[in-house]
């Protein structure tokens, strides 16, 4: 890690978000497992012995797990908050399930991951969330009738990514294994329909770095033949689209002074879309996408240097720790985790597609094989 990274301050910053929070955090109640994940993954990247430090929280995290019978099928997943949950209306959803699994991996809670949960029924929950014919996923089931998907939920590439990441963590290492639960071909069609003319992936032709990272991570996780849905020409455009997201204050780029979303000080950072300001989280989403595609092209990684500088000089908070979205806002757990994860990715210590430090993922998978 770089000397300029305020490791101790970041650890303190993340610690604080795991402690008692004031009532203004009430609005984030449904995303609590995400906040915990950002704080645990972030600290794990910074070298904290997370399992030891949060040993006491292991069993509390286990209380988020719910199993229920759905017309004879057992399905299971995790709720955002055990005290908010209801018996007649299960509130499990896909993001909370993935964040809970990440949290348990961070805490080395293998006993629960291998004995305490029913992996097959978690995969069945993923299966129930897939929309037949469209291939994409919603994140939860209907509150009145659990046998149908929620009609009010969005259904985009984020949920596709979350679904595939859950299946992978639950033991589906290949598409053959995934086919037991989901329609892989339909999902690939959905991904393909998000290819944009400019390169990158997005809705209705507008490429977006977040969706691009989701799409490429899915293909990376599923591997093999799945890459064939993308033409070599599209892959090459996507590489170009991604490298073009790095904001520069050199050459012709500085001629954009009349662009109200351009800031010379963003140099080295990545933006999520054309003509937007750079943002800490897009450094991660773009770098992850580029690392995935770099395996095909050997483009090199000189963009790392400027990206690292941007994170350390612009969005890292020197006083209270944490990373912010940009050089003006206050830090928050999401951007802090993504900033640290981006630096770990640059240092080769992070598995971007699975969003876990390499050592943690390796340990989990080794345990899996045994």
């Amino acid at each position, binding site marked *: 890690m770089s000397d300029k990274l305020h490791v101790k301050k970041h650890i303190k910053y993340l610690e604080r*978000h*795991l*402690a*008692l*929070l*004031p*009532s203004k*955090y*009430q609005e*984030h*109640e*449904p995303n*609590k497992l995400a906040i915990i994940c950002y*704080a645990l993954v972030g600290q794990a990247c910074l070298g904290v012995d997370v399992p030891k430090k949060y040993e*006491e*929280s292991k069993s*509390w*995290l286990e*209380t988020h797990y719910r199993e229920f019978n759905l017309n004879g099928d057992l399905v299971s997943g995790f709720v955002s908050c055990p*005290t*908010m949950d*209801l*018996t007649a*209306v299960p509130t499990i959803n896909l993001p909370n399930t993935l964040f809970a699994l990440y949290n348990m991996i961070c805490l080395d809670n293998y006993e629960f991951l291998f004995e305490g949960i029913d992996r097959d029924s978690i995969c069945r929950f993923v299966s129930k969330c897939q929309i037949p014919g469209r291939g994409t996923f919603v994140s939860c089931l209907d*509150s*009145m009738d659990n046998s149908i998907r*929620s*009609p*009010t*939920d*969005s*259904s985009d590439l984020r949920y596709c990514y979350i679904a595939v990441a859950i299946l992978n963590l639950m033991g589906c290492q290949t598409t053959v294994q995934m086919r037991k639960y989901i329609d892989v071909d339909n999902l690939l069609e959905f991904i393909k329909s998000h290819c944009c*003319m*400019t390169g990158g992936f997005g*809705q*209705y*032709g*507008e490429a977006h770095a977040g969706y691009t990272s989701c799409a490429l991570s899915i293909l990376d996780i599923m591997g093999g033949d799945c890459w064939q849905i993308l033409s070599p020409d599209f892959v090459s455009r996507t*590489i*170009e689209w991604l*490298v*073009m997201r790095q904001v*520069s204050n*050199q*050459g*012709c780029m500085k*001629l*954009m002074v*009349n*662009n*109200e*979303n351009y800031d010379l000080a963003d140099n080295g950072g990545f933006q999520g*879309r*054309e*003509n937007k300001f750079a943002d800490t989280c897009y450094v991660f989403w773009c770098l992850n996408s580029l690392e995935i595609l770099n395996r095909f092209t050997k*483009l*090199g*990684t*000189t*963009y790392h240097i400027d990206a690292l500088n941007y994170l350390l000089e612009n969005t890292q908070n020197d006083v209270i720790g944490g990373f912010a979205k940009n050089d003006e806002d206050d830090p928050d757990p999401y951007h802090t985790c993504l900033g640290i994860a981006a630096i770990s990715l640059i240092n080769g210590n992070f598995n971007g597609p699975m969003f876990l430090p390499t050592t943690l993922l390796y340990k989990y998978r080794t345990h899996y094989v045994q």
Partner: protein
Amino acid sequence: MLDFKYDFDDIIPLPISSDAEGELCQIMYDDDYKHLMGIARAMLESKELSERALHITNSVVEVVPAFYTIWNYRYNIVRFLYGENAEALDKELDWLDEFTLNNPKNYQIWSYRQAILQLHPKPSFKRELPILHSMIDDDTKNYHVWSYRRWCVLFFKDFTKELAFAGDFIRRDVYNNSAWCHRMFVLKNYHPSAQEIEAEITYAKEMIEKAPQNISPWNYLRGIHEVFLSGNYSPETVEFALSFVGDFFERKFSINHEGSLCEEAPVVESSFALELLATVYSKRREHLQKAKEAYHGLIAWYDPIRKNFWEYRLGLLEKDEGK
């Protein structure tokens, strides 16, 4: 927080507690929150579908806009109470407009809105236009709102207002990439005539004149050529791109053994023009040298942060040449 129009006395609140052992991110709930959640959860637990339940969901989503279960609950209440009653569903959309204006960054609202429109017996695009306009007006690059607009355009199969709509936002900020993408989305969906395509090329060029170092209209120009003109660039378009690179291609560069250019940088107004020319020149063997010069120019002067990438491009070109 609760309206006294409705009586909740018969509801036994389901308490929420937050002091479990080992709990992380423990939130210090305030009393109003505990009271509201206690009642809302009790009603959801008993699956009550009523006006007062609908009212409770108003309060809950105000406090916790990301609470996905409550949005779903609300939908079920609305469907049960109003069914396909157009007037009542319009009132629900009125409420949603108001909520949307106060919570512009929430993204649950858009999928909820889609569900309501799909329930509505007579959904109307016209009914959607004011909220769409004001949301985009307020945050001109909001991805969720633009996506919702495109969903509507396809849902209502009405493309008639879209070029003008995108044009308004491009006029306001020529760098608005969402507006440019919207324009391309429209073109790709309605099979324009040759004349209309020509008009779009002219439009893109006019906008480039205003701000040559703007990737969005260059992407648009490139997109039109690739989608509708099989990637063939007319001599006029090449001339147009050349007008932004000064005397770059008239200079005689000597490229040293390290591959860099030795002279002083000619004035170039747009790296995107140079890149477009590199792409066009790469396709013709007699112009390969020019394409290489363009990439060398990007590396040395006009876009050095992407040196690696331009070198990679140069490498591909040399590989092609070797064949």
